[in-house]
């Protein structure tokens, strides 16, 4: 049991990422307001960024920007640069996705006059009937 909690402490970044992911997922499940659902999705995105960046971190090394260009860079100086680039991609896609879904939400609000998903579904069904 003590080992388990010690491992939890050592993997604290990843465990935080898991908890954040589930918080965002619960936001998706428990809220009927569309804006709150989008906020939940953004929290899930943040959890993925945290997991990726912590996968690239190495103890005692610094960000991969060379202080002196004359000294050749070695693997032992810098952290892993690959996950950082992946996180950049994730951020851009998340921003685009958030803007697009917010625009869709605005259109839905203009048509049905509410942000609550069950009311929107009810009114859409009634207008079809």
């Amino acid at each position, binding site marked *: 049991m003590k080992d388990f909690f010690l491992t939890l402490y050592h993997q604290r970044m990843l465990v935080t990422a898991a908890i954040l992911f589930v918080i965002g997922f619960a936001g998706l499940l428990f809220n009927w307001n569309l804006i709150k659902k989008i906020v939940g999705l953004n929290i899930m995105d943040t959890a993925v960024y945290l997991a990726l960046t912590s996968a690239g971190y190495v103890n005692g090394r610094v960000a*991969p920007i*060379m202080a*002196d260009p004359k000294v050749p860079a070695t693997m032992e100086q*810098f952290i892993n640069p690959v996950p950082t680039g992946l996180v950049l991609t994730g951020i*851009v896609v998340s921003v685009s996705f958030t*803007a697009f879904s917010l625009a869709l939400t605005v259109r839905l609000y203009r048509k049905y006059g509410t942000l609550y998903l*069950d009311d929107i579904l009810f009114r859409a069904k009634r207008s079809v009937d």
Partner: protein
Amino acid sequence: MSLWKRLSAWADGEEREQWYSRPKPRREKPRRTGEHRQHEGVFELVKGLNKEQKTRVFNTLYYISCVVVCVVMMSVLTLIMVNLPPFGDPANPTNNELSRYYIEHGLEDAGAINLVGNMILSYRVFDTFGESSVLFLATTSVMMLMLRDSRNTGRDLLRDFRRENTAELEALDHLLRSCSRLLVPMVFTFGVYVIFNGHLSPGGGFAGGSILGGGLILYAQEFGTTGVSRYFTNHLYHIIKVTALAIYGVLLLYYGFMGVNGLANHIWLGIPGTILSSGIIMPINVAVGFEVACTIYAFYSLFHKGEIK
């Protein structure tokens, strides 16, 4: 009636029919036979209740199942995370020969001392081009949804929006105006600095472009709609966006064909560590910066006023 049909009917709002004032015409339901009744299972419990009580029962069941799903998900994810390779260990499988190559050969291949910049704008430049295209597509689709013209907005709504805009112009906040008058020049200068130092320091096109877009939003707060439209019109916006993406694409095609195949090319890598270095990275950073600044301001402008100007 199956469980799935009941759930979907509840999700479609049929169970809440009586909450709304307009009554719905009754539909004839098919009569149940004895065969169906044996398979009802859980629904035997709620058979005698009226609709409001049934809704309450279904709500309770939904929330309980959600809590169960969340708790199971969190425990499974935590168990997976505990069994992953340890945090910050140099011997992790993620620190493989790929990152070693990017770190040790980045300077001689691409010429920037920011090794992440080398990676995203030289080795993996197609990926970053895809990101810029995603931003472009996102602005285009938001524009389709949010532009307020006679084709996608009713006439009365359009008149209301115009009235709101004129009312907003007359009521500009004085505190915000005087503060942003101080801040806007500094924000713009810092954004340009971050873009042009993308190959020397943390930052680059995406970060600097966001700062420039934030500065534009602050400027729009300061001078209102007419202030920005004096120099940033819809026409100029389209020109900048398409030109930046086109410059990026041309540079990418040239470098992707010549540089990757080791052919002789006209890209001068420069002296490492100075501002004129790193080949295509700085022009691409500038193009991406303009693209991102336009995107950020377009999002603000489309959501706020329904047009870009």
